[in-house]
């Protein structure tokens, strides 16, 4: 890195976009620079409202997020969006297309206005992030990116994911407010149930609510919430996740989504859950880092001469796989100085 991380951070805190963009790349790459950044920003973060938004492709969640952040920016807030999309497992490449849906309207009436630099200053900050396949990478990068947005003064910080994959569900559920977006006619409620999203949702949005079947989705959700009444959030905290009907494409209902999110934050504050959520988020990040560190150490051990010897012994029937793994685990956990 040529530019000093703390210089970039100082510039980003002054509201400059490009240094923040570069810091986010450092976050994505991970490693010592990212660790340095993590330590640098830790004390500055913690105040922003972190909102996780998930929904299947085609649920219109990006359009919803776009509408929401442009309204928020217009009313003087400083929203940021982290749009997470999957990388191709085969090539590691990705097409990140959410920005088009989130970004301010190109080519429309707004784009014809002359004063675009002013417009940009108040525009939401949008960053696209690919999952980049490597194990646990996303689980490290997303929390740090979120803390970075928070530390440089963005609020709310919205994480948008398609909600497949455990890491993504974890990321959303670790937000202050987890929003699950559904649409009529796509079997979304069933999918959400399978993915475990119903348990973590703090707020449901039925998008494209002008479509036939929207009421059915709402009824399904209500029913599921009734069923989980005894076990879910409602029983422990008395909070029942509201269901908001919206049509993001027509700009309807997004203010209701925001009001519901604010109300949920109020509920968290009132019940002191805000702090426990934040702590949970930090725990999740720490756990992810530890897991990642263990994975790296395990990888290194497998590649080491000793590791390979242990593994090769299983090929000759003189060592069972469970014994080999136990031996390696002992090496990993008790004798870290021996692993390279």
């Amino acid at each position: 890195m040529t530019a000093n991380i703390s210089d970039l951070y100082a510039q980003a805190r002054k509201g400059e976009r490009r240094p923040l963009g570069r810091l986010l790349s450092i976050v994505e790459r991970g490693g010592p620079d990212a660790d340095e950044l993590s330590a640098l920003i830790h004390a500055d973060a913690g105040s922003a409202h972190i909102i996780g938004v998930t929904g299947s492709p085609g649920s219109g969640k990006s359009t919803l997020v776009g509408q929401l952040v442009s309204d928020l920016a217009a009313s003087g807030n400083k929203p940021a969006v982290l749009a997470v999309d999957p990388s191709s497992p085969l090539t590691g490449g990705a097409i990140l297309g959410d920005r088009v849906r989130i970004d301010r309207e190109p080519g429309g009436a707004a784009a014809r206005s002359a004063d675009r630099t002013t417009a940009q200053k108040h525009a939401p900050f949008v960053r696209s992030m690919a999952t980049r396949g490597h194990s646990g990478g996303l689980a490290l990068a997303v929390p740090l990116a979120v803390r970075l947005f928070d530390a440089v003064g963005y609020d709310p910080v919205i994480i948008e994911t398609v909600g497949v994959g455990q890491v993504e569900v974890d990321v959303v559920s670790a937000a202050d407010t987890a929003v699950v977006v559904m649409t009529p006619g796509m079997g979304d409620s069933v999918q959400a149930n399978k993915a475990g999203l119903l348990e973590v949702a703090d707020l449901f949005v039925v998008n494209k609510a002008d479509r036939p079947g929207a009421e059915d989705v709402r009824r399904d959700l209500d029913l599921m919430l009734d069923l989980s009444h005894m076990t879910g959030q409602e029983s422990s905290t008395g909070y029942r996740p509201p269901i908001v009907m919206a049509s993001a494409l027509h700009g309807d209902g997004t203010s209701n989504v925001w009001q519901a999110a604010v109300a949920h934050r109020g509920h968290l504050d009132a019940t002191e859950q805000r702090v426990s959520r934040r702590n949970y988020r930090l725990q999740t990040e720490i756990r992810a880092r530890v897991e990642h560190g263990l994975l790296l150490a395990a990888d290194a051990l497998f590649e080491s001469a000793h590791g390979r010897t242990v593994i090769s012994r299983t090929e000759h029937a003189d060592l069972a796989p469970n014994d080999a793994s136990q031996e390696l685990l002992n090496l990993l956990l008790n004798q870290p100085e021996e692993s390279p």
Partner: protein
Amino acid sequence: MADAPIRIILAKLGLDGHDRGIKVVARILRDSGMEVIYLGLRQTTDTIISAAEEEDVDAIGLSMHNASHMTLAPAMVEAVRAAGLETPVIVGGIVPDEDLEPLAAAGVAAVLGPGSSAEEVAATVRQAVNTNR
């Protein structure tokens, strides 16, 4: 750290709506392991530069199919430099041979014409990025 994937913006500047080529290129680059931030149609130099800053991309790819490249491509390069960015600007689309030299002189890093193979597309982007890195 291990090499991070190349991040590139793909956009159509101006009114031109021909997006067959840019969509094919987006897939080619994805399949070459790059991260494509797809901005799509009707972008301005301003929207592209904002995206380049926030996304911290290694290159900007413009697709042009309606003979406006001699006006719009140099304008893009100029705007990128005026914003203090060094990001290479690559133009793809229908560009007659005789325009290649003036575009290069205007600071366009590379031009990909019709019939470029997938390998050529990916290699051209890599080279433009590496020259700049």
